[in-house]
């Protein structure tokens, strides 16, 4: 469904993503893991068509990402990106105007579950509320691929539970959910695949069930192993 081939992105002399070849299939909830600056956001932004690769390519359903793929890929940036003059209602209207797969009804429902109201002004939101608003707008789309960059950032435990519920509800056989987060252990029960990236390089892409049964490791164990270099005894 989503595939990158020898994907590289350089910013001047700094290489953010270095030759990542990766294939992600529908029917999975996948974690993209790595420390800050490892290239997760850049990879996602390239998949969303926001960042242009220096070399290599990224494909959605076999074709290079394009204007067409933006109709089916819902991307949520980790940064607050709504226009500050907007209210939550304006955000819904904006998504409704530009995305055919956006459901106003689902959006209102998600807002209610996140304990947000449509009259809230974006500029007056706390970081946690702004994060919940981003989630509501993104998950109110009926996309084929969702890419949520740090969806749990700045959100309290109870709200995180709500978001986890909403994410699981959107999963399906014909859909792919890709999440990046620093909260590795919390993601463990949510995802079934994990992609580990370090310094722009793909280290491993694993099926978590196989990881547990064949190597006796959890997602967090492998994370510690990869990023600390210390062997984790299963």
């Amino acid at each position: 469904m989503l595939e990158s081939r020898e994907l590289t992105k350089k910013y001047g002399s700094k290489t953010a993503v270095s030759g990542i070849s990766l294939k992600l299939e529908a029917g999975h909830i996948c974690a993209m893991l790595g420390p800050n600056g490892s290239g997760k956001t850049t990879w996602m932004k390239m998949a969303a068509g926001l960042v242009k690769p220096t070399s290599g390519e990224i494909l959605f359903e076999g074709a290079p990402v394009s204007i067409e793929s933006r109709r089916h890929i819902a991307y949520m940036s980790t940064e607050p990106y709504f226009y500050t003059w907007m209210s939550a209602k304006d955000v819904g209207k904006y998504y409704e105007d530009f995305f055919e797969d956006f459901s106003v009804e689902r959006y209102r429902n998600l807002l209610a579950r996140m304990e947000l109201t449509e009259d809230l002004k974006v500029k007056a939101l706390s970081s946690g509320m702004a994060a919940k608003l981003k989630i509501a707008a993104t998950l109110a789309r009926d996309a084929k691929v969702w890419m949520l960059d740090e969806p749990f950032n700045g959100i309290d435990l109870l709200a995180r539970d709500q978001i986890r519920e909403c994410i699981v509800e959107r999963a399906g056989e014909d859909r792919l959910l890709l999440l990046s987060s620093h909260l590795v252990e919390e993601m463990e029960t949510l995802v079934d695949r994990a992609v580990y990236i370090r310094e722009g390089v793909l280290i491993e892409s694993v099926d978590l069930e196989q990881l547990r049964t064949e190597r006796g490791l959890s997602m967090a164990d492998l994370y510690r192993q990869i990023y600390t270099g210390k062997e984790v005894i299963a």
Partner: protein
Amino acid sequence: MIRLMKYELRKSWYLKAILLLVTAVAEAVFLIGLWGGKDSLTATGVLLLTILATTGTMVIGLGTVFVLHRDINTKQSCMLFMTPHSSYEILGAKLLENAISILLIGAFFFGLGALDITLLFAKEQALDRLWQIMSEMLRTINENLTIDAPHLAAFLWMLIADWLTTVVTACLADVLSASLLAGKRFSGLISVLFFLALNVALNWLIRLIMNQIPTDFVTSCVVGGCLSIVLGAAMYVVTAVLMERKLSV
């Protein structure tokens, strides 16, 4: 495209609202002076309205460049570029909204100016004399110059077309700074110098072509304006291609 334009208008409405508000104040000063027989107030109103009319369209144009700069350099860029629209449509919507705003504001000031002049000289009962004096003044500058609707319209067309092309050129310089020059030292300075050089080059090219076509004032303005628009369209294509292929937000 219409939806993109709707949001472009929304992003810049405050600038237009401020312009209209200040214009309303200037007009009030003019009218109070006119009907109250206070010449100093009338003169102040005329001066303010003249300044607003000449700078208003410029401010609106600069507003578009400012909004584009924000749209490609801040966290909010995601909002615009995640929509299923190409850079051609995104930039096109910005420029089209800007062109329509400039034309409407130009027409608004033209109409307001005509109304105020009519009021001024209707009150003084010397409207015919005014046109005569102004026409004579223009003829002292150039014997082919006359003040009539075709001359004014042609001159305004040329000014607006030139300004629109300048706005597109500024957009190109801004996109250049955020794409090919992104992360490089002195990218801002280089893009400003590029903007200035490109403007000089475009004006030189227009003059060069116009010098080959000896013609009267009205035709010269119309053709010059058309040439500006053609060059502006070429700059638009270059800018959109650059955005589509090289701009990362």
